[in-house]
């Protein structure tokens, strides 16, 4: 492209349109983050489902892999930041949404871990406790630890949130579809037992992140191959 060439009005407008299109097309998520989180959340959900349905234990909490995935995520985010050559206006917004989502998920996990014991202590200090009573009278009453019923439904609802925001802002239809399916899974999970909620969670992670991750990765690799031609 030469500096000297004087343009006609039509050529100028065409050039502006082409360049704006090129700038917009420069958003290339590598897809690795989506693949990573889609994998770990779907594996953890599915293994939890299998353990509860087939009554076995793998010997450790499978959800630790989700916590462990933070380490490669930090490494990936730092590497992608270095490789980014053009920053879009909405990049910071989308990143902030995912950060808040991450904090919320860990906050909810903390709530899930702490609330039963904390509530037990509180209600004991008030001089009462929860009792589980079998309606057919086949077993004696048992003291019950308080718990949030079907809490994984709330996770499903949350999975849809950053996915839908990213899908809409970046005009990336697979994430919009994934988020809409996630809302459907949420509604179904409100009527199913917790172990089936886990199965729905595995499906949600696949449609929200894993499949969009594959599509993003393919696009990214195709874009890189085209740039190297």
């Amino acid at each position, binding site marked *: 492209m030469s*500096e000297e060439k*004087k343009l006609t*009005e039509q050529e100028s407008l065409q*050039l502006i349109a082409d*360049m704006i299109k090129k*700038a917009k097309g420069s958003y290339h998520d590598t897809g690795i983050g989506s693949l990573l989180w889609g994998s770990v959340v779907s594996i953890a959900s599915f293994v939890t489902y299998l353990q509860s349905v087939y009554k076995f234990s793998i010997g450790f909490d499978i959800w630790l892999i989700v916590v462990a995935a933070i380490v490669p995520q930090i490494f990936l985010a730092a590497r992608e930041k270095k490789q980014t*050559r053009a*920053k879009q*206006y909405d*990049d910071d917004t989308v990143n902030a949404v995912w950060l808040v989502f991450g904090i919320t998920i860990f906050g909810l996990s903390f709530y899930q871990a702490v609330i039963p014991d904390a509530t037990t202590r509180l209600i004991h200090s008030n001089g009462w406790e929860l009792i589980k009573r079998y309606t057919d009278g086949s077993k004696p009453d048992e003291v019950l630890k308080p718990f949030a019923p079907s809490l994984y439904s709330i996770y499903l609802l949350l999975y849809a949130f950053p996915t839908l925001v990213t899908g809409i802002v970046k005009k990336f239809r697979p994430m919009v579809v994934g988020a809409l399916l996630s809302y459907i899974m949420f509604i179904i999970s409100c009527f199913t037992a917790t172990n089936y909620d886990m199965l729905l969670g595995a499906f949600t992670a696949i449609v929200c992140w894993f499949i969009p991750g594959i599509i993003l990765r393919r696009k990214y690799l195709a874009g890189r191959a085209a740039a190297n031609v």
Partner: protein
Amino acid sequence: MLEGLLPMFKELDPILHSQLRLAVMSLLIGVKEADFTFIREKTNATAGNLSVQVQKLRDAGYIDVVKQFKDNYPQTTCKITSQGVKAFEEYVKTLQQYLKTGS
């Protein structure tokens, strides 16, 4: 004598009315900031030519240029200024005027 009969045309901004400088500005209007290498790749310009045109846009106050070292490599980042956005919008408006009258 014809002055009253012909529509009044604004002059097209000479800083923007050049192929490479207009391409750079059109790229930067769509992003928050961009590396020199990104602009060079998208415009297919030579580094030397692009460097000269970026400097002209910077001198006009249309873009900000930040030179820094990232992992021991020099990195030049360009960002459009509010003055640049205004000039670009004005340029597009004037172009549209020309085209409307021409059609």
